[in-house]
């Protein structure tokens, strides 16, 4: 059941224009696609991060819906409190609308410092949607390394250097960690595949219980790509199998996209300045290792999806 652009055109924007995110930022694209996937009223919380600081510089706000931020590591706990307050009000007859509860966190606020709060919220089974806009680093504060930073990428806290290839190890598989909370709907998507993302968001909103969507959301500034290439680079991540699109529901994994012929990872690496040191002679084994890991991970998902 596809979304039609003509239906979306007339929809109220939850995140309005005038916010101060960078030109070409993937985050507001993710927010707009997700928030347009429901017709219910939304109450939103954001973890500290690019999205939060750039949309709510006092006395301005870009949010045309009730919204709260309190800290970096607690979007999972905050959304638990918000949604539980709603249940209490509902029980008392103080509210009759079906409100949806949505949390946004970056990869720093989700993979790293907020993982415990997210896990707690998923385990407890609150009815909410958590969206991680994953830009693979602490981009708000200048591209520090996170658990989502991919192997070989240079960050300001694990930079490339004479004796460093940038990040030495593979990123954490957060979507599968979320899926290990078997009561949760867990999905991985990308801003480049808007039908995929919006369908997953719709499913997440309709799912009775906790839902988690990990959305690849390029940071053009620190991935070192032109600001006009956001969607293109995100699409390349999917086409190289660097960022597979999949979902897990009731412990069943579905691969939503299998490229007929996957593009080599070097295409993805070459397109971004954060990997440019890998193109120097002598780093071929690193690229080979990244390719092997990408293929091994995709095979793993294929096996899980066919069981």
């Amino acid at each position, binding site marked *: 059941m596809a979304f039609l652009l003509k239906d979306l055109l007339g929809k109220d924007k939850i995140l309005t224009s005038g916010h101060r995110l960078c030109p070409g930022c993937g985050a507001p694209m993710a927010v707009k696609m997700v928030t347009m996937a429901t017709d219910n*009223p939304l*109450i939103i*919380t954001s973890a500290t991060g690019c999205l*939060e*600081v750039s949309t*709510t*510089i*006092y*006395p301005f*706000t870009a*949010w*045309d*819906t*009730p*919204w*709260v*931020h*309190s*800290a970096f*590591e*607690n979007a*999972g*706990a*905050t*959304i*638990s*409190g*918000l*949604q*539980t*307050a*709603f*249940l*209490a*009000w509902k*029980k*008392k007859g*103080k*509210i009759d*609308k079906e*409100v949806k509860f949505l949390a946004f966190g970056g990869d720093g606020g989700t993979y790293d410092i907020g993982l*415990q*709060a997210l*896990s*707690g919220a998923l*385990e*407890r089974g609150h009815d909410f949607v958590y969206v991680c806009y994953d830009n693979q680093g602490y981009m708000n504060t200048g591209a520090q390394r996170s658990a989502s930073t991919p192997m070989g990428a240079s960050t300001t806290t694990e930079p490339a250097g004479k004796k460093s290839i940038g990040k030495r190890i593979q990123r954490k598989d957060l979507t599968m960690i979320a899926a290990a909370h078997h009561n949760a709907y867990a999905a991985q998507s990308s801003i480049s595949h808007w039908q995929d993302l919006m369908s997953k968001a719709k499913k997440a909103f309709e799912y009775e219980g906790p839902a988690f969507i990990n959305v690849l959301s390029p940071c053009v500034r620190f991935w070192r790509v032109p600001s006009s290439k956001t969607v293109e680079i995100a699409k390349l991540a999917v086409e190289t199998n660097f960022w597979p699109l999949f979902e897990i529901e009731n412990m069943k994994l579905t691969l939503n996209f299998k490229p007929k012929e996957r593009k080599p990872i070097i295409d993805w690496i070459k397109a971004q300045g954060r990997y440019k040191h890998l193109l120097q002679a002598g780093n071929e084994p690193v690229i080979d290792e990244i390719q092997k890991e990408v293929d091994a991970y995709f095979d793993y998902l294929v096996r899980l999806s066919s069981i």
Partner: protein
Amino acid sequence: MSTIQKNKLSLTGNQAAAEAMRQIDPDVVAAYPITPQTEIVMAFSQFHADGKVNTEMIRVESEHSAMSACIGSASAGARTMTATSSQGLALMHEMVFIAASLRLPIVMPVVNRALSGPINIHCDHSDTMAERDSGWIQIFAENPQEVYDHMFLAMKLAEHPDVQLPVMVNQDGFITSHGVEIVDVLEDKAVKDFVGEYKPKTPLLDLKHPVTMGALDLYDYYFEHKRQQAEAVKRAFGLFDKVAGDVSKLTGRKYPMVETYQFDDADYVIVTMSSAAGTTKFVIDSLRAQGTKVGLLKIRLFRPFPYKIISGLLKGKKGVAVLDRSASFGAFSPVYTEIMNSCYYLDARPNIYPVVFGLGGRDLTPKLIESVYTGLIGNKFKTDQIEYLGVRE
């Protein structure tokens, strides 16, 4: 005479807090168990399991998430409570400040326990004192009855439209939290009528009036907002006696910011808080029987601090020993510091001595308190030197 029916129950301080929570029946409780607060969460969970409350409970995975969930719930517009101790309070430290600055009237019993390290489960005030600049109102209880009564005071003060601030209801870990005493318990209906329905000013659940809370606040506005916060705490101070008076009408007991015992004609005075006040009263009785003019000043309200009331009371006293149940390494302890602040401008300034006692639950025996009065009378203490009471040097 009060016409309200009262029941007498044998309750620990923890049970007294839980009983008050049952009667308040908040919309949301988000809590994590920690010694010695655990019994509050267990007792309240049983009330919940038995259908005795309408509360929605969130069994969070940490105290940081407890306060974060409370912030979510209270900003949504729900009457919200939690409870903690020691490391739990330290873990939620970040969120404690945010709850106050978002002006969320969360009520939290804090069962005071020493902070690690080394790890220790017993009473001192290092946990709550580490939060004294957080913007929360801090009330201290001497016994289970005060714990119970303070809960209603806290709720009403927190939710007062001119206040909108969170409140900690402190009690001494184990000494009060696990000590059984007779507690006068109010009728459920009396509590329900008293606390009434919470009317939040800008709840997120008011979908017709969407608000943004917790925005990024830079050098152009942050200072004004902090200034407003200071004003709100000042208003809480101004309203404390009024709200306390309303609770008094219900209970027949009084809740002054500062309580005195055998004080007016006393030459030598101990200033302290919480359960230590009870032991001190006992010692005063026996010393008074021997004709010694000793007294007590007990602080109930520590934040905001009642400076003027205290300076008025201590004016002209010969000697004052301030008994702090927490240390500030390399500096004087918090209560002593505030007492000094209170008395600086007095013409007849008493000698004020810093005494640290009871760290990690070290027992404060009547004999030790007697030694403080003897020391005051015999002029044995030095004003610039901390006396560590009952420690092996």
